[in-house]
């Protein structure tokens, strides 16, 4: 196994493009190293991106934030401005593992590992975050929801690497939230995860909303009908019940060691409703 730690994005893309055999990007390594240790993955080339200066930066941009691919989740949690603008994304990133894990783990790694249960992904999808991808043919921008295609699989072509994720600016009276269900209180993998982001008008009516679901299908889903159920409402009982129903209806889960289909479907609705209530509180400035 060859280990490289290039200093520029171009060098990383060059190495990846030329690689023979299996190549993997190493960000925090909290997924990759586990896979190496257990022997499920035996790459020929590992490219560490933590020496690429622009990948390690978290910067304000156009009223939003650009998160470099090597920025650990702990850094997100410590940034008051990001926390204020996108509290739901930050709370999702700060659910990953534990304090120790968050000192290493990145949201881009979470995204590119392509686990359907990745915590930060539904939150970033609800936030309409955009990933920047660099490759042999230059740069492209991709909605985060289009990166993962199936468990462990991404839409990235050979030689491509995600360099950053952009969290956009947002209007006043907006709020977001992420909730997950785990049978314990930490150090577990989401059985269901729900991200909700919404914006209220001055009259308190919901003008826009995005709802994303994790761990209920082969990849995180945008639940458009669930969002529609609350747009144009004040998130009254009826709207919230419709939201829950639509979120449950969007699920395409499997039975596995972490939960049954029926459990995931039911709990997706429950969490969608609770996350919407939390996002609403934040939008109202509470």
């Amino acid at each position, binding site marked *: 196994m060859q280990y490289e730690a290039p200093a520029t994005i171009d060098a990383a893309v060059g190495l990846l493009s030329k690689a023979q055999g299996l190549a993997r990007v190493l960000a925090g390594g909290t997924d990759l190293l586990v896979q190496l240790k257990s022997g499920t993955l035996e790459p020929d080339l590992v490219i560490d991106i933590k020496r690429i200066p622009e990948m390690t930066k978290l910067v304000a941009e156009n009223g939003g934030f650009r998160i470099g691919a090597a920025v650990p989740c702990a850094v997100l949690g410590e940034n008051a401005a990001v926390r204020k603008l996108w509290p739901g994304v930050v709370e999702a990133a700060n659910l990953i593992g534990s304090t120790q894990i968050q000192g290493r783990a990145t949201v881009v790694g979470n995204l590119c590992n392509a686990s359907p249960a990745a915590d930060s992904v539904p939150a970033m999808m609800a936030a309409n975050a955009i990933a920047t991808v660099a490759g042999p043919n230059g740069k492209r921008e991709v909605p985060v929801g289009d990166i993962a295609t199936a468990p462990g699989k991404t839409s990235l072509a050979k030689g491509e690497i995600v360099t950053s994720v952009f969290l956009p600016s947002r209007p006043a009276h907006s709020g977001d939230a992420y909730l997950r269900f785990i049978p314990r*209180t930490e150090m577990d993998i989401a059985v269901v995860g729900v991200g909700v982001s919404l914006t209220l008008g001055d009259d308190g009516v919901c003008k826009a909303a995005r709802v994303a679901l994790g761990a209920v299908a082969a990849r995180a889903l945008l639940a458009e009908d669930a969002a529609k159920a609350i747009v144009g409402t004040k998130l009254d009982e009826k709207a919230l019940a419709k939201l829950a129903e639509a979120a449950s209806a969007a699920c395409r889960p499997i039975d596995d060691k972490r939960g049954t289909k*029926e459990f995931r479907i039911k709990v997706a609705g429950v969490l969608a409703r609770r996350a919407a209530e939390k996002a609403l509180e934040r939008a109202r400035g509470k």
Partner: protein
Amino acid sequence: MPLDPATQKIRAFDQVGTRPLRPDGLDKVTGRARFGADATAPGMLVGRILRSPHAHARIRSIDATKAEALPGVKAVVTSKDFADRSDDLRDILVNIMARGKALYEGHTVAAVAATSASVARKALKLIKVDYEVLPHVTDVDLAMEPDAPLLHDDLITSGVEPVPTKPSNIARKIEFGHGDVDKGFAEADLVVEREFKTEATHQGYIEPHACLASVGSDGQGELWVCTQGHYMVRDVCAQLLGMDVSKLRVTASEIGGGFGGKTTVFIEPVALALSRKAGRPVKVVMTRDEVFRASGPTSSTSMRMKIGVKKDGRITALDALLKYQGGAFAGAPVDYGGMAGVACYDYPNIRVVGYDVVTNRPKQAAYRAPGAPMTAFAVESVIAEIADTLKLDPIEMRLKNAAKEGTKSAYGPTFGPVGLVETLKAAKAHPNYKVKLGKNQGRGIASGFWFNFGGQTCVSLNLNIDGTLALAVGTPDIGGSRASMCLMAAEELGIPYENVRAIIADTSSLGYNDVTDGSRVTFASGMATIHAARDAIKKLCGRAAKVWGIPEEAVVWEKGFAKPSGANAGNFEPMSLKELAANAAKTGGPIAGHYEYNAENAGPSFATHVVDVEVDPETGFTKVLRYLVCQDAGKAVHPSYVEGQFQGGAVQGIGWALNEEYIYGADGRLQNAGFLDYRIPVASDLPMIDTAIVEVPNPGHPYGVRGVGETSIVPPMAAVSNAVSHAVGIRLTESPMSPPRILKALGEQAARKAG
């Protein structure tokens, strides 16, 4: 063991009952302590094990020629490297290395020793095993069906008359009890009968099995190993390898948890065989995945429990059917588990029938009060349901039936002084029992019992030249026992605790010691320590007598000093332990106390647990709000470590109740062989576990000590189930009571209510 007259009255102690720091504490928190995987040796090789990917398969052939030819590979072993046998070690032999058939996924098929981990890994891939995959069975009820896949074609059920002519997966039938249950049920005003299932759990010790084996060309071997019993390891390994016991010296490392799971061998004979073949030391360390797949979890069970009572709650009869599967070999603890599980109450009529069943799962190993939590779950759930139906206070209902001194137990003996009533009263008096519960909250009560064990024990106490002492015991310290040993030696000798240092001696330094199990160590090694101290004191008095020129009988020992017994004996200044030690060379040489025996009269420990939970009705998530353990310790030598045992058992039981389980796929493979998906409770899942130590002295121990390590895991599954059942208004009968299971039960209840 004759009763010590000193125990007949409750005595006052100077040191026993205090809470000094444990001697191994600093090393453990600073990382200086050496565990199983921390040993190294010059020229050491890495040993790795090839395991069956199939739940059940005939091994047609094993071809290791390519692996043997790989540079860096120094030895490959298979079942051919172990002589077959027909004695009672045969199951262990077949478990540590499959012979002819792989009986469960993870069963060892071959092993390699190589110069590095990566070479060893490559070598494993080069070993070609030709398997014929066979149908498998992992569920206890299915394994008992007449057409179930058969694990052993020579397994004839024992305990059945007439003796069956055909083999089956039922290894044993057991039956015990007394009275006439039919008559008892006829007299009852209320009879409740329920079926229960519990899934297998793992002890979940944080340290995986690890050892370093070294066998020289002269046939002498050494083994460094993480185990609960290095004498057992020595004797079993020597026999499996055909070595003289004297040629194998085993040293126990510090141990990162065992809970019963390290009372047998897995990798140790394999490591020794590899080392013997390679002529080099070999270290084998299991991965967590291997620990789950190939060490010993508990039994899973299927049970029917029927209890009849009078209107006032007095039990008239209990009838139980218990089916325990214990993995691929006979030995599921349905006997002791069943006996202990019903032991809390006084039954005029009781019948327990049990089956020990084999399935294609790893061979079960002991887990804290082996087998008892499952039967207790069934008994205590039915008792709770009866108390609810009759609107009786659950503690009063238990008090009415509680086993006490003079009660004839279902397993035979009549109890001496025992503390169940005291634990029930302590629970009732505790503030936790009076807290008002809110919405979606429920309270559960359950009691529990474990026999406790004495066993073969040998200790040695050596006086150093400065008056400090070296105490050598042969029972690995899995819960702070070295601190308790030092306290007891210091108490007897009347010297400071810090002046005694206890070590776990290797197998060549002391006589045979049984494994650290059965909650026996503080009781048995502790009593041996007391007697060894008394032996030393006798010798110390003799030395003083010699110096003073008076008869030995005229010298007494008091708080660290030899003194003339009275004015008649003569007028001499008391002689301190320090002086006696300094003068030992001149008065007859080294001074030591010894004691070896087979300890009896361990004295059982009873407990009562009270737990409050809150269940989220929309997700089935259970939060444990508060948890109380009241347990009889006889005499708590070191109360902190007694409380630690109470808390540890409760936490493991909470995990068993709520989320821990072995999940098998249709292919017979374990789906969750890691701590991510095998969910033991994490710290943030738990409230502080409250404890109340009850002390009803055990007449079988000079200080009244009872073992406390195991009883604490017996009540939790039932207590939590009772609490959850009260919170959701549905009686739950299957463990674990995980969120999907609770939510499903709630959904079914809602559907029933809707009509």
